[in-house]
């Protein structure tokens, strides 16, 4: 099972058609999976087939294509339920991305349960998508948003968090893994403590799901969100997991077709289960593609993926540390394969432009995590993020291209 010999990186790379292409005449070195991941051929084939052979709208039809399309769509929900070990398919809601998933909880659960003076606890590690929805809902309800501090290594400060918890804490929303600096948050402890304080917890798993197996029943989070495009699936699809007991009591968010029971102008009643939160025609083909992507990673196995990525993280950290004037931002003990760095005197945008000319795709900027940037007192960083299809040669190419930067900036 855990035999690394059977993780054949060349075979994995061959599953991703984009690696056949060149950029600026050089082989593509893709180190931007933290922003969005590339797609394996099986996912593209599933998408193509769903449109070309079995396409129709779901749920509302008795004809053959509609039935087939519905079965494929719902099979994908079951794939995701099983993958997350959710207790029921009614706990798995398809959205358009992680951002919508979080907004759904903020608008529905938040607006219904928050009062003046209630507290929402986030952390300094959060992506804007797990900050702004809470600020918007806080403004509407009079609740207050607080942020758990992080230390100089980028570690989530558990002690400070425990002290912040109190009777006013109603919602805790923290990331599982920081997209900007890779910190893995001890979400199990976060959840348990929040529950002891009587708060519900949303975990933003956008960066976790591509890298580790998650288990809703073991974790105990009330809500867990992720986004399809980062886990080798299509764009336009996200997932919200929510405990049935909470979802059942929540008011609907988006209104429209498919989420109703009976509509009259006098009174409308709503569907039960996941349907209540899936208004309008869902991202049918995107859900099918996402199910295929989840099957793909599971066939490889997360133990192997994690081992491979940790190897790359260690190698890249070691290689980058040897570059004078390079500073790695975020050195948490437990990290995913994401490395943010700065170079003395060279702005990240200049780094990005120069390494791109060598075919190296990294992300430069604030990574939608400005409070985190403020914490480290930088406006932006350069970030290399790895996925299962990266190899040591990618790290070497990155290092070589940073030497180019140094050469230009003398």
């Amino acid at each position, binding site marked *: 099972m855990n035999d690394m010999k059977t993780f054949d990186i060349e075979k994995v790379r061959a599953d991703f058609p984009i690696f056949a292409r060149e950029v*600026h005449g050089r082989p593509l070195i893709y180190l931007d999976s933290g922003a969005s991941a590339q797609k394996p051929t099986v996912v593209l084939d599933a998408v193509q087939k769903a449109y070309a052979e079995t396409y129709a709208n779901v749920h509302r039809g008795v004809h053959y294509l509609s039935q087939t399309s519905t079965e494929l769509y719902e099979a994908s929900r079951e794939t995701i339920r099983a993958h997350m070990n959710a207790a029921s398919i009614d706990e798995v809601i398809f959205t358009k991305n992680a951002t919508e998933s979080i907004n759904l909880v903020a608008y529905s659960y938040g607006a219904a349960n928050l009062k003046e003076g209630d507290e929402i606890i986030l952390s300094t590690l959060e992506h804007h998508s797990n900050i702004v929805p809470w600020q918007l809902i806080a403004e509407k309800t009079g609740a207050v948003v607080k942020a758990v501090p992080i230390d100089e290594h980028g570690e989530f400060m558990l002690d400070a968090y425990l002290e912040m918890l109190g009777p006013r804490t109603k919602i805790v929303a923290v990331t599982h893994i920081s997209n900007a600096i890779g910190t893995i948050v001890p979400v199990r402890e976060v959840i348990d403590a929040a529950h002891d304080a009587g708060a519900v917890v949303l975990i933003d798993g956008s960066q976790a799901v591509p890298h580790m197996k998650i288990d809703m029943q073991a974790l105990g989070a009330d809500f867990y969100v992720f986004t399809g495009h980062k886990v080798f699936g299509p764009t336009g699809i996200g997932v919200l997991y929510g405990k049935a007991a909470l979802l059942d009591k929540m008011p609907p968010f988006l209104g429209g077709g498919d989420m109703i029971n009976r509509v009259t102008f006098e009174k409308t009643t709503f569907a039960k289960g996941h349907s209540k939160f899936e208004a309008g025609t869902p991202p049918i083909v995107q859900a099918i593609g996402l199910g295929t992507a989840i099957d793909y990673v599971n066939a490889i196995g997360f133990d192997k993926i994690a081992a491979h990525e940790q190897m790359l993280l260690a190698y890249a950290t070691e290689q980058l540390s040897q570059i004078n004037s390079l500073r790695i931002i975020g050195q948490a003990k437990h990290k995913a394969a994401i490395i943010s760095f700065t170079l003395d*005197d*060279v*702005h*990240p*945008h*200049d780094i990005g*432009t*120069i390494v791109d*000319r060598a075919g190296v795709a990294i992300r*430069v*900027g*604030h990574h939608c995590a*400005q409070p985190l*940037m403020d914490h480290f007192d930088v*406006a*932006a960083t350069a970030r290399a993020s790895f996925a299962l299809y990266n190899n040591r040669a990618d790290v070497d190419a990155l290092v070589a291209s940073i030497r*180019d930067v140094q*050469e*230009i*900036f*003398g």
Partner: protein
Amino acid sequence: MFDDLRELYQEVILDHSKHPRNFRHPEDANHEAHGYNPLCGDTVNVYLKMGHNGLIEDAAFEGKGCAISLASASMMTEIIKGKTETQAKTIFDGFQKLVKGEDDNFDAGEDTERLMVLAGVKQFPMRVKCATLARHAMSSAMDGAEETSTE
């Protein structure tokens, strides 16, 4: 290494970015504006002293940014100083077209050559905003706006 990178990061540009001219906050500035690029978080504050007939008596800036945005801000302050508002805006427009690659016959009079060193940006569409951040802030400062953003 690549020619277009060499052209983008010319000596003059690196020099301006490392030693920006007019990097200060003049006390007698009577127009100022704040520029912000939400893509990278870069900020620039520009300060102008506008005299009679729209004459720009002093131009300066402070801020953080990449080599391109710093060099562009630095060179712009040098170029617009002593010009009228109308002259400056004509240069800005021409410059905008130059770096977007929309105009191959860029002509800014005596300043043409100096600004041409930034022409390399046109090969890098994602960097056009860096090159134009200061110019947008300067326009806003002249118009009296307080904050501009490149988006």
